[in-house]
């Protein structure tokens, strides 16, 4: 049901003579130099593809251009250069009228501060997209109520936005986006304004919904934890450029540069990593021959730690076919927690002589 979204060499430059600025950027001029000339390059050469049913997270700090990038995807901002293709159409080529049509039928958006219409009831808010499409009242109200129920707001249809808590308001925002049955969902820091507990709830709910709805979702956030929790893939943005695209583990294990790496420091690695990322793959072959507990490559890091605590020797990792694929020594677990994958050093002190060495820093 979902379609593939493709961004190809997107540029967005604000200020005077944007086309010239793009040309200069292509020739390698620095963003700072342009800024001195009074033009701001918000997005520079962004290219990526979002597969149907995928949650694609764009992660970056404020000012990194992620919101601008998102608004180019549904044409709220016109790219200075580059193309956006979605569902077989080049959104940068079609006219304003057709673009509005696409926006009303197949792309919907959830906003940071909810952007609910204060002069409409919850139901009318949820039904807004359908109203724009021209769906008759009875049907749009039915579909709005369904969307609201899906977001856990059954019974609140007749309330007004200002009577709801922040979390509930954003559920209305989500319901409004879902009600149109759009294939592509653009979420602009949609959970940032919520307090942490509610945010967790919303993230869980989004993941839960996504299991059944299989929308294509582009999610903007400045919170790497959120990015890693939600994202099938993550694009890291800095100063208008995408510096790395990869899965959460890719980002964590193989940061493209120091900037990305500096982000990952604060990440709760135990939530992201799986056994596959941690295990040593050089195996002797007999590590699983005992009756001890084993792990699979998908076992989460936290579970792996628990197993390791119960098993006297390195934990064996067995794939679905019962084949031994790796082994995880406790030392390695501790090392990953501290982001240190170097080989252990040695110590001359006799009291530290043991089969497994523990890094002092751990």
């Amino acid at each position, binding site marked *: 049901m979902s379609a593939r979204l493709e961004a190809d060499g997107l540029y967005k430059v604000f200020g005077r003579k944007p086309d010239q600025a793009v040309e200069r950027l292509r020739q390698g001029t620095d963003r700072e130099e342009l800024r001195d000339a009074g033009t701001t390059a918000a997005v520079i050469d962004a290219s990526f593809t979002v597969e149907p049913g995928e949650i694609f997270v764009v992660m970056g700090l404020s000012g990194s251009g992620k919101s601008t990038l998102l608004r180019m995807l549904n044409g709220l901002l016109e790219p200075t250069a580059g193309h956006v293709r979605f569902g077989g159409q080049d959104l940068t080529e079609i006219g304003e009228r057709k673009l509005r049509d696409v926006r009303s039928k197949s792309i*919907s958006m959830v906003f940071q501060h909810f952007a609910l219409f204060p002069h409409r009831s919850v139901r009318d808010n949820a039904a807004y997209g359908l109203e724009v499409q021209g769906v008759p009242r009875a049907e749009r109200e039915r579909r709005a109520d369904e969307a609201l129920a899906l977001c856990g707001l059954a019974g609140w249809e007749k309330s007004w936005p*200002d009577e709801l808590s922040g979390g509930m308001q954003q559920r209305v925002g989500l319901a409004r986006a879902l009600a149109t049955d759009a294939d592509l969902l653009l979420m602009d820091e949609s959970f940032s304004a919520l307090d942490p507990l509610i945010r967790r709830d919303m993230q869980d709910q989004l993941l839960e919904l996504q299991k059944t709805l299989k929308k294509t979702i582009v999610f903007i956030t400045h919170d790497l934890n959120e990015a890693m929790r939600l994202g099938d893939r993550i694009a890291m943005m800095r100063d208008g450029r995408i510096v790395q695209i990869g899965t959460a583990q890719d980002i964590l294990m193989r940061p493209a540069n120091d900037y990305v790496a500096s982000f990952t420091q604060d990440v709760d690695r135990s939530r992201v990593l799986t056994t596959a990322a941690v295990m040593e793959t050089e195996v002797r072959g007999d590590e699983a021959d005992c009756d001890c507990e084993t792990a699979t490559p998908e076992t989460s890091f936290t579970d792996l730690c628990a197993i390791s605590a119960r098993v006297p020797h390195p934990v064996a990792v067995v794939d679905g076919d019962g084949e031994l694929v790796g082994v995880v020594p406790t030392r390695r677990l501790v090392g990953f927690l501290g982001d240190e994958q170097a080989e252990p050093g040695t110590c001359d002190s006799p009291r530290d002589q043991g089969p497994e060495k523990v890094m002092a820093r751990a």
Partner: protein
Amino acid sequence: MPRIPLGDWVNSTVDWLLEHVAWLFDFLKTVFTGTYDGINAVLQAPEPLLLAGIFAVIAFWLRGTLAGVLTFVGFAFIDSMELWENAMITLSLVLVATIIALVVAVPVGIWAARSDRVSGIVRPVLDFMQTLPAMIYLIPAILFFGTGASAGIVATLIFALAPGVRMTELGIRQVDKELVEAAEAFGTTPRNTLLRVQLPLALPTVMAGVNQVIMLGLSMAAIAGMVGTGGLGGDVNEAIGQLNVGLGSESGVAIVILAIYLDRMTSALGTQVSPLGRRAAAKARSLGGLKIWSYRPRPQVAVIGVVILGLVAGGMGVFGGSGDSEAVANGKNVGQGKKVTLGYVPWDEGVASTFLWKEILEQRGYEVEAKQFDAGPLYTSLAQGDIDIVTNSWLPTTHAQYWKKYGDRLDDLGSWYDNTSLELTVPAYMKDVNTLADLKGKAGQFGGKITGIESSAGEMALLKDKVAKEYGLDKEYKVVDSSTPAMLAELKRAMSKKEPIVVTLWSPHWAYNDLDLKKLKDPKGAWGKGDGVHTLSRKGFAGDDPTAAKWMKDFKLDEKQLTSLEAEINKAGKGKQQDAVRTWLKSNPDLVDKLAPVAGAGGATPAEAKRALDVAWFPWEEDVAVTYLWKNVLERRGYKMNLKQMDVGPVYTGLASGDLDLNFDAWLPHAQKNYWDKNKDNLTDLGTWYEPTSLEIAVPSYVKDVKSLADLKGKADLFDGKIIGIEPGTGEMQLAKDEVLPGYGLEDEYEIVDGSTPAMLAELKRAYAKKEPVAVTLWSPHWAYSDYELTKLKDPKKAFGEGNTIRTISSKKFPEQYPQLTKWIKNFHMSEDELGTLEAEIKDRGQGHEEEAVAAWLEEHPDMVGRMTPQ
């Protein structure tokens, strides 16, 4: 610094606008006055208390019980102060200005909100409009729109427009950007974004703007009283002029009541119409519970209430109309319901003379309106022709600067009261100051001040330039510019404290009756001879209404008459001036006939005029022209005419039987020969007033080589074989077909097309515009010869026959019945140019406007009336 002649530029711009865009102002004026008249008619129609009830129900609905009760009390109070009519005038003015302001302001505000450039242009314009002192455009507004409602509306509009635009722009710009983005993200069109998101959310702010528009409009409406809009503003203006604090505060309070009502209602309406406001109100109500004072009926109930009261009001308005127009004795009905507008400055002698003339003219069958002004607007209006007569113009000194400016557009009908003087005046308790010379050396006592009036007044100039110098006061005293009301207020204040004060004053003035004052003697005669109180009229009034103008010219009052009349008026109080005049006239019974003589030697209306004339006319251009001309002229002389449009045959029969009196359009001796011959024993021929006439075929003069009927031969191709005719069966068509075409051998080439006179003229006009060759049947006299360059084709063979003359014929008895008129008609002649221009004027104004056209034409030909009806 070079002098930048901004003022000159503005002057020439104004002149240019007056000359070239008058149509636009006329259009606007029509729109404004139309709307105003409509709303005013609705508001004035019902019984005051009933309308107060309607207002109260609206308040009950919008704000609750208490507001409803207070509304009723407030409006009933206005009614009890006898200010109802004026309050409704003001209300209509404000409503019209508000409606128009919103029609302009909201779209401009929306535009400005969507475009920074527009916003950048609009903002300084608004600042300009809002801060420019109102007087500066109030007076010029008269130039463009004349006095009355539309000038007031325009001034109010200029002043009140700004908040409407600003608040609309602000409201829309204030709407959360994210909401607008959300709307766009869901594919909303810009139009719907505006209508469904921006405007609803901006509505509270927009309504606050509406509220501001109304409030500013109301404050301006009070000022606009100066340009004769009437209403409460007029009352305030009048009260200030007479230093009548009581009346001033009454009208002030009435304005405040209106203001509070409108303010509360619009803000409540703001809550009602905006979805957010409704939500907030509902919330507040659910918290507060049900209370009797804040109970509000459902809209349906309110609407039903308003409708019921409205129907009752409408019904009473329709059936309650009273016929208060008194029948004016036939012979004295000189005015024939003609409208005359008198303007006056609210000085006692002005009020007295104005209302005296109002009464006299009404007795003579005029419809008279008396309007009060400040001196400046008064002269502007008179020069504009918005008012006809002003009876209290102080010349040559006091109103000198106005006369200088407008004199060439005014007619001075002479002075009716000469016993005036200008003077410096002190309270009577200033024992040792009796002459101007006594002031010298007493500057300390008077604080070195002479309290003056408007710096523009002639008296002030005279005082500063001449009087003060002559008595050596100019070094000691400073003449303080102020205003007449301020001077009087200062005088009153000082006298209540018995302080020394010296003021500029003039006689006659009511202050001499009210206060114990002493005129300072002027032994050196520095003030010069006193002004005369003159009667001025707009230019051309004497031509339009020689009778009334003559009355005005002969108008004189002596001091005893004037003071006794003034005393009577002061006794009766405001609003009863005319009653006072009537009372006064009872004790001066001969005065009306003396001031406005109707019969006798210099008399206007001969006794014969008592019987109405039945005049028959044919719908032919020259007859329409001459008949309406006579109607206008004879009505000035007190005659009454019934016009009857008829065919030729019945006219002759009617005249012969005596059922009809006159017909001005007898084409004799040829065209109507058979009718004449049949009835001539019972008819009188009053002579020819126009000759020669002819029937002819005419072509535009750009058709070069066609000069005579014979030239038409062989040119059928040029004219497409057609001669455009008129109504079939008329004498001319018969002649053309039976005599002319065969006579010149044209019958095989040309066809005479039957049609009608208007169709022929239309075809002529069309062809003329395109310079196409065309031949039409025409006759002289005809206005077409004035409007187009046409060649009458020569008729050497006299196929069209001998020329007729146009004569006036009457019934047999007519010369006995109307000896005076008979004499006039017998001496009556018109030239081809006169008739042609009159016909053209009538044609230009269109059907139904014949009387206007004649009046306008007579203004161009001022001697005509005297020529036709010499006295």
